[in-house]
C-alpha cells in the first residue's frame, strides 16, 4: 500500500515523535511492497489552506491510503471527501474524533483530542487542589492552542476552580525571556494564581523560570507535550505534570492499521483508537524517561 | 517688443521661516533667451520651480499671455506649454530611451478595445528627436538610459523638453557637467529653440555660455533681482561681478585677463615656486 501521512510543522518536537512512529511502522509496509510518504507543513502561518493543499497533493500522488489530522474540519472536510471519493482509504489521526471519522467515511480515528487533553489538564489541577490556573498561549488565535486552553478552563470550572488564558503578542513568540517575564508579571499582579500551564513543551522551560522568578512557591506548572528538560523538571519536582497524547502511538498505529486494512482487508473493532491524554507526573516519570531515551516519547 | 508669454509680478517665496525669493518681476518673450544668473543659493532654481509648478509662490502673480495662472502641480505647467529640464535628475537609468523620453506623456494607440503604449512610435520619435540635436550615436530606443554618457543624457532631457515644450523651455544649468563639445551642442540647441520661436529661460554659472545665447539677462542676488538688462547693455566684467553677488572679482579676473592677453602671443612659461 502506498500511504501518505500529513503532519505538523517541521520544527515541532511533537511531530518528530509522530515521524518516529511512521518510520517504525514503515518497514512493515515496505515489506509488503508499499511505501509511506510523510507530507509535513512548512509552518503554521497559513494553516488551513496549507493543510488542504497537502491533502490535494496526496490525492494527486494517487496514494492508496491517507493518514490525516482533521484540524480544521470546515476546510478539510471537502478535500477528505474528495480523497475518499477517489478511492483512497482514510484514517483520521491526532485531530478529528470518532464522530467526524464516521461522518466522513474514514475507517477509524487514532489519537487524542486537544480539547479533551486540555480538560484532562484542568481536571488534574483541580483534583490537586488548585483554584486559579493560567493557560499561557504564545500562539493566540490558532485553533489547536485555543482548544487546549479552552479545555483547561472547562476542566478547572468542572472541578470547582477557575482558569484564564494569557495571550502573548507575536513579538514575544520564541523569546523565552519575554515569555518568562510575562508569566512572572502576571503572577505578581494576580497572587491568586496557583497553577500555570503552557501550550508547548518549549514554553514550559520559560514558564519554569518565570515561576521561580516570581518567588511564589505555591504555583505548580503543567505543560502540553513534553521535552527532555520538562521531564527532568518533573523528576526534580519543579514541574508537576505534562499532558502526553503519545504521538508515537498515534502514527505507528494509524499507519499500521491503514496498511493492514488496505493490504489484507483487516478491520479493528475498537473505534476510535484513543492514545491519550496520558498524564506524565512523578508517578510514571521513570518509565517515560526510558521511552525518551529511545526517541519515542 | 512682443508681448510676454510668461510674466512674474512681485513674486515672493518662503519655505517656512526662510525667505528665499523677494519681489521678483520677470518677463519672458517668444523667440528670446532669458538668462537667469546669480550666485549659488541666490534662488534661481526656486524661480524655475515656481514656473514649472513644483512649488507655488507665497505671494505675487504669475501670468501667461497676460492672464493670471496658478499651477497646482508640474503637470499643469506642462499642459500650459512650459517644459523644464531641472538641475539634477530628470532621467531614469533603468528605463529605455523611448520610455524615458515620453515619461508622463506616453503616446498610446488603440489595439482593439484597448489603448496601449505605442512603443514603436515612442522609440522612433525619441531617437529622431535626440538625433536631430546631433547625438547620432543613439539609434535604438530600447537602449537603457543608464548606459548613456552624461552629455547624451542631458541631450535626451533637453530634446524631450523641446519636443513637448510648445512655448516655454526652461533649462537649469544644462551645461554644468558637460564637456566643451557637449556644452556647445546644448548652446546650439538653445539657439535652435529660439529660432523656432520658443521662449527660453537659461540658467548658467558660465559667463561665456550666458553671453553666447542670451538676449536678456536677469541677475538674482540673495533672492532679489539686482539687475535686469538686455544683450550688449553691460560688459562681460560687469556681468561677472553681478553674477558673483555684486562683489569685485577684480584680482582673479585680472589674472585671467592678463594671461589671455599674453596667451595669444605665446609668452614664456611662468616662473615656478619651489
Amino acid at each position, binding site marked *: 500500500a502506498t500511504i501518505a501521512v500529513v503532519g505538523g510543522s517541521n520544527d515541532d518536537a511533537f511531530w518528530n515523535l509522530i515521524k518516529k512512529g511512521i518510520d517504525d511502522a514503515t518497514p512493515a509496509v515496505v515489506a509488503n511492497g508499499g511505501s509511506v510518504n*510523510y507530507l509535513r507543513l512548512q509552518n503554521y502561518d497559513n494553516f488551513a489552506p496549507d493543510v488542504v493543499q497537502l491533502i490535494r497533493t496526496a490525492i494527486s500522488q494517487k496514494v492508496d491510503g491517507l493518514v490525516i489530522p482533521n484540524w480544521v474540519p470546515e476546510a478539510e472536510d471537502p478535500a477528505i471527501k474528495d480523497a475518499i471519493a477517489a478511492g483512497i482509504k482514510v484514517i483520521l489521526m491526532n485531530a478529528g474524533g470518532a464522530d467526524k471519522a464516521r461522518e466522513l467515511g474514514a475507517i477509524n480515528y487514532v489519537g487524542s483530542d486537544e480539547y479533551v487533553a486540555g480538560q484532562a489538564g484542568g481536571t488534574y489541577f483541580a483534583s490537586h487542589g488548585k483554584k486559579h490556573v493560567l493557560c499561557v498561549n504564545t500562539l493566540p488565535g490558532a485553533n489547536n492552542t485555543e482548544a487546549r486552553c479552552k479545555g483547561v478552563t472547562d476542566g478547572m470550572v468542572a472541578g470547582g476552580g477557575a482558569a484564564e488564558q494569557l495571550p502573548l503578542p507575536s513579538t514575544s513568540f520564541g523569546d523565552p525571556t519575554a515569555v518568562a517575564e510575562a508569566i512572572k508579571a502576571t503572577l505578581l499582579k494576580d497572587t491568586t494564581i496557583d497553577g500555570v500551564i503552557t501550550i508547548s513543551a518549549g514554553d514550559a522551560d520559560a514558564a519554569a523560570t518565570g515561576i521561580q522568578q516570581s518567588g511564589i512557591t505555591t504555583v505548580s506548572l503543567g505543560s502540553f507535550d513534553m521535552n527532555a528538560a520538562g521531564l527532568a523538571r518533573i523528576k526534580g519536582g519543579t514541574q508537576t505534570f505534562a499532558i502526553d497524547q503519545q504521538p508515537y502511538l498515534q502514527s505507528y498505529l494509524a499507519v499500521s492499521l491503514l496498511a493492514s486494512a488496505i493490504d489484507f482487508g483487516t478491520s479493528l473493532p475498537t473505534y476510535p483508537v484513543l492514545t491519550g491524554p496520558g498524564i506524565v507526573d512523578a508517578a510514571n516519570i521513570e518509565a517515560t524517561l526510558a521511552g525518551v531515551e529511545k526517541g519515542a516519547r | 517688443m512682443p508681448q510676454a508669454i510668461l510674466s512674474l509680478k512681485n513674486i515672493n517665496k518662503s519655505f517656512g521661516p526662510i525667505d528665499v525669493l523677494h519681489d521678483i518681476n520677470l518677463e519672458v518673450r517668444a523667440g528670446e533667451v532669458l538668462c537667469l544668473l546669480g550666485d549659488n543659493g541666490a534662488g534661481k532654481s526656486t524661480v524655475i520651480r515656481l514656473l514649472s509648478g513644483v512649488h507655488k509662490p507665497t505671494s505675487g502673480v504669475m501670468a501667461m499671455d497676460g492672464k493670471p495662472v496658478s499651477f497646482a502641480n508640474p503637470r499643469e505647467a506642462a499642459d500650459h506649454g512650459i517644459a523644464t529640464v531641472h538641475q539634477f535628475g530628470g532621467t531614469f537609468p533603468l528605463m529605455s530611451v523611448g520610455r524615458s523620453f515620453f515619461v508622463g506623456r506616453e503616446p498610446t494607440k488603440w489595439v482593439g478595445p484597448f489603448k496601449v503604449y505605442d512603443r514603436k512610435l515612442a522609440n522612433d520619435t525619441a531617437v529622431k528627436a535626440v538625433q536631430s540635436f546631433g547625438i547620432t550615436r543613439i539609434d535604438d530606443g530600447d537602449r537603457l538610459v543608464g548606459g548613456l554618457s552624461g552629455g547624451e543624457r542631458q541631450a535626451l532631457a533637453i530634446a524631450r523638453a523641446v519636443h513637448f515644450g510648445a512655448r516655454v523651455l526652461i533649462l537649469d544649468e544644462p551645461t554644468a557637467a558637460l564637456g566643451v563639445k557637449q556644452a556647445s551642442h546644448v548652446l546650439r540647441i538653445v539657439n535652435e529653440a529660439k529660432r523656432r520661436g520658443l521662449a527660453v529661460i537659461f540658467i548658467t554659472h558660465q559667463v561665456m555660455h550666458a553671453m553666447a545665447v542670451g538676449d536678456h539677462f536677469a541677475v538674482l542676488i540673495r533672492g532679489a533681482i539686482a539687475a535686469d538688462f538686455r544683450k550688449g547693455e553691460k560688459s562681460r566684467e560687469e556681468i561677472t561681478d553681478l553674477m558673483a553677488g555684486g562683489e569685485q572679482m577684480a584680482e582673479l579676473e585680472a589674472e585671467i585677463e592678463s594671461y589671455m592677453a599674453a596667451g595669444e602671443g605665446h609668452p614664456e612659461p611662468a616662473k615656478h615656486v619651489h
Partner: protein
Amino acid sequence: MQSSFSPGAMLRRPEAGAFLGLLAVMIFFGIFGGLTFLQPAGMASWMNVASNLGVIAIPVGLLMIAGELDISVGAMVPFGAMTVAVISGHYGLPIWFGIAAALSFGVLIGLINGYMVIRTAVPSLIVTLGTLFAVQGVVLGLTVLITKSTSVALSTEGAAKTIFGDFFFGGQVQVMVLWWLAITAAYIFFVHFSRFGNWIFAMGGDKVSARNAGIPTERMTILLFVLSSTSAAFVGMCQAILYNSAQVAGGQSFIFNAIISVVVGGVLLTGGFGSIVGIFFGTITFAIVNQGIYYTDFDRNWSSLIIGILLLVAVLMNNTFRKMALSYSPRKMGVK
C-alpha cells in the same frame, strides 16, 4: 536598429533570469520527483499555492518597482478572512455584505499606508511594519470581543461560493487560479501596455524627477498601497469562503514568500526595474520549490535550506542579467 526579438534582447529582459530559474527548478524536480508534479493533479497542487501567493505578490512587486515595500499584507490576509467570517458567518448577514466589507477594509488600510508614506519621510518598511502589528492587534482584539473565539465558521452557498471559493476542473483547481490568471493579464496590460506602467517605473527610478515630469506620484503611491492591501484582503476573504472558516492567526508567511517571489522574478529591491511576467514566473518557481519537495524523497526537514539557497541563486542570476541589460550598447565602447 537591433530587432527586439533577437536572443540577446530576450536575455536582457527582466524576466529572463526568472524564466531560466523556473526551467531549472522544473528540471530539478522532474529528475528528483518524477514527473507527477507536471501531471494535472500535481500541477493543480502548485498552481493553487501559486495563485494565492501570486495575487498578493504582483501588487507587492509593483510597490517594489516603485521603490516601496508593503509588509502589512501579512496581517491583511487574516483581516480579510475574519471580516467576511464575522459579518456573514457570526452575524449571518448576506455574504455580499461580508465581501464588500472585507474589500473596503483592504482599501482603508491601503489608504492609511499610502497617506503615511507620502505625508512623512518615513520609509514604507517601517510604516507598514507599524500597520502590520496594529492590524494584527485589531483582528485579534475585535474578533475575541465580538465572537469570544479566535476561529469563526462561515458557510457560503450559491454564486459567491462558485465565484470566490470553490474548486473546478474535477475538484482539483481553486477558482483562485482563474482570478490569478485574469488579474495577472490585467496587470500585464496595466504595467507594460498602458501608460500607467511607465509611471511606476519612473517613480522607482527617481521619484522627484517623476513628479517633475508631471506624474501624479502621490496618487500613484496611494493607489499601489491600496492595490496590495486590497489584494491581500481579497485572498483572505476567498480562503475563508473556500475553507468555510477563518482564523485570527496566520498570513505572516505571505510577507516573505511574496518578497521572495518578486525578487526571484527579477524585480530590483531598490526600484525601477522588473516585470509582471517575471513576478509570475517567480511565484510559480517559489510554489514549485515549496510543493515540489513532497514529490521527492528528500528529507522534508531540509526544505527551508533548499528555499534559502534557491533565493540566493536566483538573485545572483538576476543580478547578472541586469548588469548585461545595463551595459548593453549596440557598439563596443572604448578606444580604437
